[in-house]
């Protein structure tokens, strides 16, 4: 779906969804970060939360007429310059394959690549954290190599452990706690991403960068 104008839709009267046009990319995400920072300062906005080239805006109190807010968002989008966040680089040691990555066989089967090639391609880029969502402390990452893209699983796994490094379509990520997932687990890390007693509770935030390092590959 390639649009030239942003799309705005309602999630009831709780929130609206602002979706940027065009192919998914970092420049657009940087404009989303910029837009979210601006929108967060408006009194009618509860929270402005970046998604993947989109943004959820919850209402502090739903306005009688939402149109002025939508127009304001669209104006702000036109004016939004990419905000290159100077984030931290966090290196994660990953054990790939074996019990740590039970679905790496499916990624091998789908891509036709050897496990060492998959690990090399997965550890090569620095992955910018585009957004936080899904579950406490979870990071949506950009920048995965298309060659290791693997479709989500037909049947979701009911209990993927925290620290699981996985691939779902064109995206990769690390689960922050035990929970269900439809993604393919290729490895695991012991990093703790979320601690409610800390401020902020999340280890990472949008603009930070993750680099995966192969601690071990179980072939």
């Amino acid at each position: 779906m390639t649009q030239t104008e942003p799309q705005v839709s309602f999630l009831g009267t709780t929130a609206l969804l602002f979706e940027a046009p065009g192919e998914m990319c970092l420049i657009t995400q940087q404009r989303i970060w910029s837009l979210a920072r601006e929108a967060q300062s408006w009194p009618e906005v509860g929270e402005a939360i970046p998604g993947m080239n989109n943004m959820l805006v919850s209402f502090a109190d739903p306005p009688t007429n939402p149109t002025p807010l939508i127009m304001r968002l669209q104006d702000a989008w036109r004016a939004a310059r990419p905000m290159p966040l100077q984030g931290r680089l966090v290196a994660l040691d990953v054990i790939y394959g074996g019990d740590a990555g039970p679905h790496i066989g499916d990624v091998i089967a789908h891509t036709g690549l050897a496990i060492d090639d998959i690990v090399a391609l997965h550890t090569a880029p620095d992955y910018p954290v585009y957004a936080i969502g899904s579950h406490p402390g979870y990071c949506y990452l950009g920048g995965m190599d298309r060659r290791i893209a693997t479709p989500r699983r037909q049947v979701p796994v009911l209990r993927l452990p925290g620290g699981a490094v996985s691939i779902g379509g064109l995206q990769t990520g690390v689960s922050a706690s035990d929970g269900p997932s439809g993604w393919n687990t290729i490895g695991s890390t012991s990093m703790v991403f979320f601690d409610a007693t800390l401020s902020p509770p999340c280890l990472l935030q949008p603009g930070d960068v993750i680099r995966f390092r192969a601690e071990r590959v179980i072939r």
Partner: protein
Amino acid sequence: MIEILSQTALATVQDLGRLGALGFGVGTSGAMDDLALAAGNLLLGNDEADAAVEIQVFPFELRFQVACAFALTGADCAATLDGQPVMPWWSYQANEGQVLRLGPPVAGPGRISRAYLCTAGGIDVPAVLGSRSTQLRGALGGYEGRSLRQHDVVRVGQPGDRVRRVGFGLVPPAQVDPLLQDGVAGMRVMPAAEYDHYDEASRAALWEQSWKITPQSDRYGYRLSGPKLSMTTPLELRSHGIVPGVIQVPHSGQPIVQMRDAQPSGGYPKIGTVIKADLWRLGQAPIGSMIRFIRCDWDDALAAEQRNRTYLDNVRRLTALYRSRPGLA
């Protein structure tokens, strides 16, 4: 303090939800029937947003280890206090050591599924990220971030704040403001982003057919069964923020309504959103029952929220009146 006596409780501490932590990936949680929780609190003179125990598996038993005013709202569970009947939506004073027992929700056309135990001063657990609601994934908030278990002892209010004037009650919102469509429980829905991508038959079915709540329904989401909803062309969406009430349609064509424990982002197409004002109706609809979606727009949704607020304002007024009347015990 109250002690949980039931073995498999699956009850949780909830308040009106955790707002403001979406940026950390933390969803809202909160009471499935926010109106019952708020009304129960107001009935006791609490803040409407105080925490209560949400009970969804019965029978459920607990012992008051201290004297404490309380009210049960939500489902009528033919409750008893040391064997004496306890009416729902009514305030009582429990003495130290008394046992409160809730049976299964009373059968009948108006049967609903969740009960709330509100206590004077609220359930006293620490607020985490601005709320006392239990967030199961990530295990935070509520009672140690988990469901209540047998022998758990939960703190209630402050000493000296647990005795309140009691002995009056409320008409439940389901009676004040029922919503039926062709005799079936109704929930108002606003179309969402991908609504127009569904074919005409699917869009018509959404409004005209009844939907059954399947057994795979819980605080995370309600999986519905009914006619298959089909898109004119399949869409691959980018992960984006969602809220409780969003009706997602996975590839099966059978909708899933996101409920209070839903994750705060997703990627399935959205055909509509059950409005905030009616989420309590869905949260109370029993597994196996039929529901109907009623199309509404922004103004209708705001008017429905106003009606809920008016109900709670009336509860607040009524309670203040009773509590201030001299000579009542």
